[in-house]
């Protein structure tokens, strides 16, 4: 029994495992269940996140690719666009249709032609350049805006801790 979603996820998995983009690794946690993925994202160079490796999990709906997956960091992530519980708030992960935030243009939102690879690349660039228009973590956003050195220090501390240093 192979649904459209499973087939497509497998396609994406294969493409990602053969030809992964720089700094990104992703795949199903277990090949029996293609709807739960784990991804590792490297902290982009030149940002306080540099050197860190950030694990995240992606959960796909059964009607993928009509609807986007959800993404959640499974590590500490002090970032304006990541909720304190790790859930990533980025427009590419927001389903088409009603815009709960009324600020995203439709072209940035999820569409079936997007892919896991594009999500992860977007998240990587989001890590490098937070969007403080719609902070998911208000405190982090404020710190990023007003006390940048403190923000960077905190992020670096998180990175070091995640590496066990």
């Amino acid at each position, binding site marked *: 029994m192979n649904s459209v979603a499973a087939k497509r996820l497998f396609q994406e998995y294969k493409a990602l495992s053969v030809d992964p983009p720089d700094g990104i690794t992703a795949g199903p946690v277990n090949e029996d269940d293609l709807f*739960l993925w784990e991804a590792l994202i490297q902290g982009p160079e030149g940002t306080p996140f540099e050197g860190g490796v950030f694990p995240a999990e992606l959960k796909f709906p059964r009607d993928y690719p009509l609807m986007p997956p959800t993404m959640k960091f499974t590590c500490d992530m002090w970032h304006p666009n990541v909720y*304190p519980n790790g859930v990533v708030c980025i427009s590419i992960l927001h389903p*088409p249709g009603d815009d709960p935030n009324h600020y995203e243009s439709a072209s940035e939102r999820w569409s079936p032609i997007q892919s896991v690879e594009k999500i992860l690349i977007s998240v990587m660039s989001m890590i490098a350049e937070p969007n403080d228009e719609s902070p998911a973590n208000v405190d982090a956003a404020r710190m990023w805006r007003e006390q940048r050195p403190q923000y960077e220090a905190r992020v670096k501390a998180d990175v070091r801790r995640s590496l066990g240093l």
Partner: protein
Amino acid sequence: MDSAYDVPDSTDWLNTPLNGFSELENALHCQICKEFYDTPMITSCNHTFCSKCIRTSLSSDGKCPACRTSDQANKLRNNWALQEVVTTFVTARPAALGVARQAQEELEAPKRVGKRKRAAVLDSDDIAEAEASRRTTRSKSRRIAASQESQPEPIEIADSDDEDEEYRPQPPPDDGLVECPLGCGKRMKEVDVFTHLDRCEDEKKQASRSKTKAPLNGFGRSASGQNARPHDRINELNYSMMKELALKKKLKDVGIPDWGSKQLQIQRHKEWVNIWNANCDSNHPRSKRELLHDLDVWERTQGGRASNANGLSSTIMKKDFDRDAYSKRHEDDFSRLIADAKRKKSNPAAEPKPPKDEEDTIQQPTASETPISTEPTTNDRTKPYEDNPEALSSVREKVEALNRGESIEPVMNEGFKAPATEVLPMDTGPSDAHDFALPHATQPIADPPSIFNATTNPLDTHEDRNASQPAGPAHGEAGPEKDPIPLRRPSSRDEHSTHEHTGSPCDLATHIADTSDPPRKVPMFAVPAQPVGDIDGGVAGS
């Protein structure tokens, strides 16, 4: 993994001398299903997708997935040329890939540079060979395609002006008759020409009318060389106007299952319409039995028979869904949501928050219940501190301190690190017992409650337990972080952030200091009703 699925993929080419084919193959993939186009259709905005893919997509949001222009399924047109390219490429692919891989092996075997050149030469031979094999298969598939391709011809003959040219070269038969000057091909006596002209015009008009109609209704059908079954496309219904019984009857009429709630019936009918119409587009129409099989796959993966993992909707859509038991089981959650909503109403500036995914409550009902039932103040959430004068006074103290303008931010920022890691595992320990999908690598950022554990009073420990236990389900399920329904219970993770903001008296300062950012998300059990009422607007409502 390849053996299990054996999905041909563009990356197959990457490690061969023909790696340029990877891009070619990608170009022949539908962007929605990421597979080779199956019955490619062009949208009004000139994008191409598989028939089934674009139909499903359009029925869900009515926009082209590529450019988001509004479009309708009945405006899709077949892209026959692309269809042929794909068919041809797929036929040629295994041979070409085999040759490419062989070439790669030969390229890798001799490690010396000198040999490499030879291999490269071989390689180009192989390419030529591959080309040749492609050419033969192409001509083969041409033949196949030609048999399917009779389709455009009837249309061309119908309304092209070339007709006259086609007829003229033939010497008119010498039978004393004249040909219709309008070119309908009829021959008649000279005297009949004028009466014929009138009729001929009418006939022509009629003919052209029926011809222009044909492509709309049966474009794909006429293309099928083998069996031109009278497949007519069906339309989605005006579901919202239909009574459930009428809808049921419709489902029966088209011959698909009619069980389930109206919602499920609607979804099923839409899916069927898409499957059916995509089949009409195809030049290899399949039998209805096969289509029903497709629908069955849908039913088991996304429809009414899908597993529970599908989420709340599929569960409550089930025919035998026990509403009473469900509402009883989640009574606590519901009352909580209601209280939450009331509180929000009195505090409209509250920020949207990640809802606690309802799925959790279904999958791990015990998990979400436990914390609530162990919470001693369940029945008296609104005034949890009433019988705790110690706590109350401590809260008052803090509030007063804050009112004097003492900043607490540094305290919070320094304090969180050390205790957070030590206290939390212990706290989340109990929730582990409920077997959540995820390991607890998922520690939240800086759990502030745990700091307060150390710094404040017994009240905080109790608060903390309350907050960290429901955290369990949130590990497993990442709820959609934006939800249009503002009333949903916040994720328990979010309650941590709640503590950061308002739950602890320490933090109230943030709001006082920065009034532009009004307080949000106040957990009702943590809010002292009276003492801080003047600070936290949210209290008034609860």
